[in-house]
């Protein structure tokens, strides 16, 4: 007699979903047949919390997921390596404790915000006073340390080639993050969850906490949930916080800044029919405090020729209210599972966006699956977005040339391949190609800026390689 122990694969999972729907349709009790609630007491069971699957649970099982992300932006810009390990402990009575550890190593260059120009542009970064060691100038030899004439101030100076997008090469950071989550059932149909996170890098720290409640209704055909998330961030830029919309110079000594974010999410998940699960979420959030990028500039150009006159630090409003409406669907048909989702977003900075996403998981064999996915995103610009400001005109209260606040469209095309290598272990590889397009030559461009590419959006490639396994 041979004894086999669990971790269901595609067929079993699909069957679980279909069966849940069969009994949901009889008007009887889906609670014992829903994939999420089942698979419990006869031992360890299906996996669910792999990065791509979010339907069942790992009751009584400990799951470890280790992955490494490689991210590379085209044009020699940001390059990141991010190892992530998460451990989820599933208690036998429905409690779940999860711990996630992340380390990010970022290097490369980011656009400094200035517009490109036909001649070489020189930028001087703020730096510490003389005698104080600085590390910002260490990157790649693209900048040099200079002593500003007539002062004892050491600054870092770098240049951008003609027609090139000005990049700041002083970009190098390592981020460490810890996230904790705990979910516990308080009765047969209600779950309470708490979470907390801490993220730290040299010039930025973020602390967050969350609290959520989920309740199943109508024999678990419907789940309603509400959650609140609080976040407190402090920003302590390398050389102090610059005064917004003042000229880039060598001496900026503003104090550290902070912001608080409060976010609430209301959600409904519904079994629509025997092979369709739908989810609707509404989220509203308010961020208050310092939301400006302390390193980012905006060019002030000559109103006729477009030539750079000076560079100012950007400025963003202190308050931002965001709302979004999300609808997701998970549809199981035969050996495939389709995820289709859409999202509408609006914020008080004037950005409206639309996201549409589709992923289709196809089981090739019981141990191998492929999951192609496509994502489309389009947003309007923030009302204070400008490619540059014009010399002689009244300065606005807020101005930023950050392409993330501009109008753009982005598409992501990717493929994930997963291979079950042991009963409880899955190896997966996911590759994505991300491409932003925007207005490179806006009709309003002046002078010689008409011929420069003013869109600083990115093209990026990322690859994740991971292994997930579970044990009792």
């Amino acid at each position, binding site marked *: *007699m*041979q*004894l*086999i*122990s*669990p*971790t*269901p*694969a595609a*067929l*079993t999972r*699909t*069957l*679980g979903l*279909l*069966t849940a729907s*069969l*009994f949901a*349709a*009889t008007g*009887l*009790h889906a609670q*014992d*047949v829903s*994939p999420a609630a*089942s*698979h*419990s*007491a*006869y*031992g360890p*069971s*299906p*996996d669910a919390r792999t990065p791509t699957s979010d339907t069942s649970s790992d009751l009584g099982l400990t799951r470890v997921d280790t992955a490494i992300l490689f991210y590379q932006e085209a044009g020699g810009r940001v390059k990141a390596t991010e190892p992530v390990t998460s451990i989820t402990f599933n208690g036998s009575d429905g409690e779940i404790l999860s711990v996630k550890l992340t380390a990010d190593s970022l290097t490369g260059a980011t656009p400094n915000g200035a517009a490109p120009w036909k001649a070489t542009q020189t930028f001087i970064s703020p730096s510490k006073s003389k005698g104080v060691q600085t590390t910002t100038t260490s990157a790649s030899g693209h900048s040099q340390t200079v002593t500003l004439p007539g002062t004892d101030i050491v600054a870092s100076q770098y240049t951008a080639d003609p027609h090139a997008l000005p990049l700041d090469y002083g970009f190098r950071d390592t981020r460490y993050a810890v996230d904790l989550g705990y979910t516990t059932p308080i009765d047969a149909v209600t779950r309470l969850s708490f979470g907390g996170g801490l993220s730290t890098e040299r010039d930025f720290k973020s602390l967050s906490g969350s609290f959520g409640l989920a309740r199943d209704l109508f024999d678990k055909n419907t789940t309603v949930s509400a959650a609140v998330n609080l976040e407190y961030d402090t920003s302590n830029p390398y050389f102090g916080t610059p005064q917004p919309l003042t000229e880039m110079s060598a001496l900026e000594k503003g104090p550290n800044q902070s912001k608080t974010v409060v976010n609430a999410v209301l959600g409904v998940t519904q079994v629509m029919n*025997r*092979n369709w699960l739908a989810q609707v979420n509404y989220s509203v959030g308010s961020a208050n405090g310092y939301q400006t990028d302390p390193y980012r500039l905006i060019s002030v150009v000559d109103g006729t020729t477009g030539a750079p006159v000076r560079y100012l630090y950007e400025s963003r409003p202190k308050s931002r209210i965001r709302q979004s409406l999300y609808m997701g669907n998970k549809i199981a*048909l*035969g*050996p495939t599972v389709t995820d289709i989702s859409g999202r509408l977003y609006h914020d008080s900075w004037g950005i409206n966006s639309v996201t549409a996403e589709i992923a289709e998981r196809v089981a090739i064999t*019981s*141990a191998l699956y492929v999951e192609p996915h496509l994502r489309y995103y389009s947003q309007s610009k923030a009302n204070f977005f400008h490619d540059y400001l014009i010399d002689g005109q009244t300065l606005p209260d807020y101005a930023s040339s950050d392409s993330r606040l501009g109008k753009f469209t982005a598409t992501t095309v990717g493929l994930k391949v997963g291979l*079950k290598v042991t*009963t*409880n272990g899955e190896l997966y590889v996911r590759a994505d190609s991300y491409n932003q397009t925007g207005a490179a030559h806006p009709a309003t461009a002046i002078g010689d800026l008409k011929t420069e590419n003013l869109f600083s959006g990115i093209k990026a490639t990322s690859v994740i390689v991971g292994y997930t396994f579970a044990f009792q």
Partner: protein
Amino acid sequence: MSYTATLQPQGLLAAAENGFVYQFGAMGSPCEIRMETHDASLALSLGEIAEAEALRIEHKYSRYLKDSCVSHINQSGGKAVALDAETVGLIAYADQCYTLSAGQFDITSGVLRRVWRFDGSANIPSPEEVDGLRDRVGWSKVGWHPPEISLPLDMEIDLGGLAKEYAVDLAVQRLQAISDTPVLVNFGGDLRVSGPRAKGGRWRVAIESVEDDSGTEGVIELSDGAITTSGDARRYLFKDGVRYGHILDPRTGWPVRDAPRSVTVAAPTCVEAGILSTLAMLHGRDAWSFLKSEGVKAWVLF
């Protein structure tokens, strides 16, 4: 058409460990409900409710009963038949299982039993006899436009691979809806429990031996979910040194070669366990690796 016959309960209540057992016959099998309560009248009413559910499903889905829903479909003479919501649900489920199993789970395969009689003899049908029936097998030939089904002339459907398991699941759910009493529902070896036993213990289920001496091969303990067993030691044919087990592959019309003699699968519901154990048998010699790759908790006897 209504299939809600009113039937007199026939079962018997007897004392058993920690409570009562209610036993009756339905769907051609001995059935029993084990209940951990000391309230005899409650036990009797729970037993009768489960029996009523079993009889209702039998009368609705047995292919042997002339006025069952399945018989109406099988006697439709090629015309479309409109089905009630429950039947639409079951057939749609069977349809999905057909797709999911790439044709291995097929409710039209029962016709093959006309030439395959697994009586322990050496009466193997000729390839011609089998081929003569193959045109009459194949769910893809059926017109399925819910809520209507159009069965080609000479084809039949048989929900035998689904109905008993479905009845177990429904019975457990009905009993759970009216009482917290821990129950085990066992219809002819397809069984499911409502949850752990009264003091949090596990239910013990013996796996019947495939040998003739009727011992047990092992004991499974479970506190939730369902268990079914596919395979029957007594139903086979034996010729020229080859043992033909009773699991027929609907795609070939022939028994699966080297199929395990018995596959026992645990799953959240009886319906799932039943389909997984049937599919495992259809994988023949690879049954064990199929179950392993599916991560299903199972016991395989070769």
